[in-house]
C-alpha cells in the first residue's frame, strides 16, 4: 500500500530553484533513503512534506489524501513526524516533558489522558535508551542524547511515517550501531521511514530503496547496490571524473 506519494514537487526561493519536479513513492513498511551532497535540497523536501514550507507546484499525497496546504500540526496529527537536522528539543523542559508533549499532541490527541501520555513517553524513552536521564533538563544533555530525544519526541506522536533528517550525524561508532538497531526496531513495529543521511554505511545497510538528489533534482533511484555504482551519483559527490 502506498503511504506517501509525491508528484512533480517544485520549490523556488527568490530566484533560486531549490527543488525541481521531484517524484517519490513510499510504500507502507519500507525504509527509504534520501541522499545527496550538501545543499541538494533534501531537508527542503522534508519541510515541504510536513507543511513547514509551501510548494510552488506539485502534489504530496499521504494515504491518497492531498496534504499540500495543511499546517504542520495538522500533518503531524495525520501521522507524519519528522526530526530536525539541527536538533531542537524544548530546552526549558525535562527530557520526559519533551516526549510527553509528543504523546499528548500527536495522533492520539483526543483520547489520551495525562497519565497515559506519561506512560507512553516512558516506554519510548526506554526504547531510545534515555530512561536514566528522564528528569534532566533538555538543555543539559550531550549532543548524542539530544539526538535520541529528538527521535523520541517524533516517535511519541505515534506516526505512521517517520522522516529522519541526518539523525545519525555526529555519532560515535557505538552510538551509531545503537541507533541503527533502534531504527530497525521501529520499522519492525510497523513504522515507515524515510531517512536523509550522509553516513553511507547506515543508509546502505538500512535503506531498501535510495533516492539521490543533487541541486534539487532526482538524479538516481534504486537499490543501494545500484545507486552506489551509478556514475552520476559518484560524480555528484566527488566531482566529475574524466
Amino acid at each position: 500500500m502506498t503511504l506517501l506519494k509525491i508528484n512533480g514537487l517544485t520549490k523556488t526561493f527568490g530566484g533560486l530553484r531549490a527543488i525541481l519536479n521531484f517524484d517519490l513513492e513510499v510504500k507502507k513498511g519500507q525504509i527509504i533513503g534520501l541522499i545527496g551532497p550538501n545543499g541538494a535540497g533534501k531537508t527542503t523536501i522534508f519541510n515541504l512534506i510536513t507543511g513547514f514550507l509551501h510548494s510552488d507546484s506539485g502534489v504530496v499525497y499521504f494515504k491518497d489524501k492531498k496534504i499540500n496546504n495543511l499546517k504542520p500540526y495538522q500533518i503531524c496529527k495525520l501521522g507524519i513526524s519528522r526530526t530536525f537536522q539541527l536538533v531542537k528539543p524544548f530546552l526549558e523542559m525535562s527530557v520526559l516533558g519533551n516526549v510527553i508533549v509528543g504523546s499528548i499532541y500527536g495522533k492520539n490527541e483526543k483520547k489520551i489522558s495525562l497519565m497515559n501520555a506519561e506512560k507512553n513517553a516512558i516506554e519510548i524513552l526506554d526504547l531510545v535508551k534515555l530512561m536514566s536521564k528522564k528528569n534532566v533538563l533538555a538543555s543539559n544533555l550531550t549532543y548524542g542524547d539530544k539526538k535520541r530525544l529528538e527521535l523520541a519526541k517524533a516517535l511519541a506522536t505515534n506516526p505512521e511515517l517517520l522522516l529522519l533528517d541526518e539523525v545519525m550525524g555526529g555519532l560515535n561508532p557505538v552510538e551509531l550501531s545503537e541507533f541503527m538497531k533502534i531504527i530497525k526496531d521501529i520499522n519492525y513495529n510497523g513504522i515507515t521511514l524515510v531517512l536523509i543521511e550522509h553516513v553511507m554505511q547506515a543508509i546502505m545497510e538500512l535503506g531498501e530503496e535510495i533516492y539521490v538528489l543533487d541541486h534539487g533534482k532526482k538524479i538516481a533511484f534504486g537499490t543501494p547496490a545500484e545507486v552506489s555504482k551509478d556514475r552520476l551519483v559518484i560524480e555528484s559527490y566527488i566531482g566529475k571524473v574524466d
Partner: protein
Amino acid sequence: MVSRKTLIFWFFSVIFAGLLPYLISLYNLHISIYVLQNIIIAVSWNIVAMTGQMSFGTAGFFGIGAYTATFMWELFKFPTILNIFLGGFLAAVASLIFGLICLRMRGIYFAVTTLGLTEALRVTLIMVHAISFRPLGTSVPVMFGGLKQYAYYFILIIGLASIITEFKIMKSKMFYAFTSIRTDEDGATMIGVNPTRYKIIAFVISSFFIGIAGGFYPFYRGYIEPAAVFDVSISIVGIIMPLFGGLYTALGPIIGAIVLTILSEKLRFFLTANQLIYGLILVIAILFMPKGIVGSINSLREKYPFLFPKAM
C-alpha cells in the same frame, strides 16, 4: 497528586484570608482589596505569558470590564455583581476577537499591538465623552452600600478562583502545549500543537479575570474615568509582579503581587516614586534575577523537574 503539606498550607491560608477583615484596620483592609485585585491581574498576565506572549494590553481589558459594568448599570440597572461579571464576559469576548486577529503575531509585534489597543481604547473613550458632552468622570454607586468587608469577600472569591484556575492549568495537558509554544513555537507546531489555538485560550481566560477585576473597580471606588481604568500602569503592574515573584511559576505572581502592592502602599510619597521603583525593579530584575524570586529558588532546587507546579 497534591501533597498533604500543600493542602494544609492552602487550608490555613484561606482561613486566614477569610478572617482578615476582623483582624486588621479598615485602611489595611483597603490595601488587602488592592492586593487581591493585583493578584488577579498578575496571575492572569502570567497565564498569557506561559504561552510566550508579552501582553501590554492588560489595562485595555481592565478598562473594557470597567466600562461594560458601568454601562450595564446605567442602561439596565442590573445588580452590581451581574454587571461585574458582564464586564468580565465582554472583556473575554473582546480578547477573543482581538486574539483571533493578533495572536498570530509574536514578540514585539504583539506587545506593541496590545499597547496600541489600550491607548486606542483610552483615546476613544475620551473622545466619546467629549463628543457627547459628557463629563469625563462618572459616579457609580458603591457596592454593598460601602461596606468594605463584603467587597473584600467578593474580590477574595474571584482571586481564589483565578489562583485555582492557574493551578489547574499548570497541572493539565494544556500546560505542555503552553510551555512548548513558549519555548519553541515552530517546534511545537511540528509536534502537533496548534499554537494559535492555545494562545487564544490563555488569552481569553486571562482577559475574563482581568475584566472582572476591571468591573469591580468602579463599584468599589464609586467613580470611573478613562484615564484611571485605561492607565498603562495597570499593564505595567501586571508585568512586574509576576516577573518579580517568578515568571511562569504558580506562586510567583501571587508573591509578587502581595510584596509589591504592600511596598508601594507603604512607600507612597507621590506617584512618581512608584513609577521610578517599578522601572528600577524591571531593570534590576532582568539584569540580575531574570527568574524572579520563586524562579531563583526553583533553580536551586533543580532536583525537581520544571514541569510540576510547586505549591510550596
